[in-house]
């Protein structure tokens, strides 16, 4: 939901100055240097308390031609508006998406719907790197099903341009003709201002904060995609750029700035998306993360149905769970399936928050009636299968 700056100003007496960029923070002097973009006028603005909520910036490769017309990141509403305008005004025919993550998938579907021919490239051997390869393969299949051409294991090498416009994307294997390129190569925290001001950074250069969203500099707070989180399954600092987390960060920071006392408990890495009819969701740690942490795990993947088999609209669902060897503690889960599949990840998310074992998950009293689920919920079935292996 977007509220315009006038609403904030008039109804909430929040002095929102759009078109203003803060270019420096002086924590000791309790002031920031703000530049009005329209005319470049710079002015020091004093503060008693400062909240840094500078978000994330899309990763843009340091390659010749990366600034050419027709190449877009899509991280802000403004960038989305710019892509739409470009499509309407320039009528591009061939879209190339670099990166097969959430942004890449959603943009692939959006561009297909706009009538473009779409090719997706990723340097990894799979799409959706936050899923395990076997689950990512289900997503790739669905993308191909809506007409997306996919080239995996091909790094971005360069761009071809003519007169400042993009004409092609060069991978390690080929050159793909392109009139429109969307970069979905991930984001990094926009923490430059904080770093330059001497405010300590943490995981992936996000701004280090405690559970109250305080930085290590008194009177300076950070929240959202620029700030660090804590992963409740790995018990380690974690960086995630998601609106849900940003809202919670902001809420906690706001309460504490007001003199209250709130704590941001942490995340379990839950995320969900959709490619046409396919819902894709994950929570917790996946195999690559577990291997990196040296955690010994068992995993089971099951196929079931979203509703009772005879109920209209029933479709396939694949659930994969991972649990710690020995203890049986649930470590993560991934779900791919048709309507009704994706939000089942919340069972996994809550179980991770609660520290349940897969045996406990298989015994949960979950809702059943034919329009909603088979008698045994697919997540419970996967938990039972995983229990046999821990």
């Amino acid at each position, binding site marked *: 939901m977007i509220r315009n700056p006038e609403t904030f100003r008039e109804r909430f007496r929040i*002095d*929102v100055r759009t078109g203003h960029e803060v270019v420096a923070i002086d924590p000791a002097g309790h002031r920031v240097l703000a530049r009005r973009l329209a005319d470049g006028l710079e002015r020091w603005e004093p*503060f008693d308390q400062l*909240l840094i*909520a500078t978000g994330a910036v899309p990763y843009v490769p340091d390659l010749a031609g990366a600034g050419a017309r027709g190449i877009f990141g899509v991280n802000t509403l*403004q960038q989305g508006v710019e892509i739409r305008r470009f499509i309407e005004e320039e009528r591009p025919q061939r879209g190339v998406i670099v990166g097969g993550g959430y942004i890449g998938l959603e943009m692939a579907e959006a561009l297909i719907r706009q009538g473009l021919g779409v090719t997706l490239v990723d340097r990894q051997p799979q799409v959706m790197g936050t899923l395990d390869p076997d689950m990512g393969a289900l997503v790739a299949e669905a993308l191909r099903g809506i007409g997306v051409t996919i080239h995996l294991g091909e790094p971005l090498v360069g761009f071809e341009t003519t007169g400042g416009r993009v004409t092609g994307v060069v991978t390690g294997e080929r050159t793909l003709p392109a009139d429109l390129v969307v970069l979905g190569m991930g984001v990094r925290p926009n923490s430059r201002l904080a770093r330059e001001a001497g405010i300590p950074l943490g995981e992936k250069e996000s701004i280090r904060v405690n559970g109250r969203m305080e930085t290590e500099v008194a009177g300076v707070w950070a*929240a959202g995609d620029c700030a660090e989180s804590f992963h409740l399954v790995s018990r380690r600092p974690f960086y995630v750029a998601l609106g849900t987390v940003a*809202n919670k*960060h902001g809420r906690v920071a706001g309460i504490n700035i007001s003199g209250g006392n709130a704590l941001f408990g942490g995340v379990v890495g839950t995320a969900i998306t959709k490619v046409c009819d396919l819902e894709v969701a994950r929570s917790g740690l996946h195999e690559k993360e577990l291997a990196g942490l040296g955690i010994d795990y068992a995993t089971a993947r099951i196929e079931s149905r979203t509703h009772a088999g005879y109920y209209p609209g029933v479709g396939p669902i694949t659930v994969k769970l991972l649990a710690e060897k020995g203890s049986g503690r649930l470590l993560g889960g991934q779900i791919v399936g048709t309507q009704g599949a994706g939000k089942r990840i919340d069972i996994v998310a809550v179980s991770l928050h609660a520290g349940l074992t897969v045996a406990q998950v298989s015994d949960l009293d979950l809702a059943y009636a034919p329009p909603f689920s088979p008698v045994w919920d697919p997540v419970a079935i996967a938990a039972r299968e995983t229990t046999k292996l821990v």
Partner: protein
Amino acid sequence: MAGERLVIVGGDAAGMSAASQVRRRRPDLEIVAFERTPFTSYSN
């Protein structure tokens, strides 16, 4: 603490969520948010 001033750098989800909380709890506080783009964002 009359006259206290909160400055927020960034007017998207985190910045405006915080701003709304602060306004609700501290009617007296001056809140200034700087946003580079023409948009603010807020969801609840």
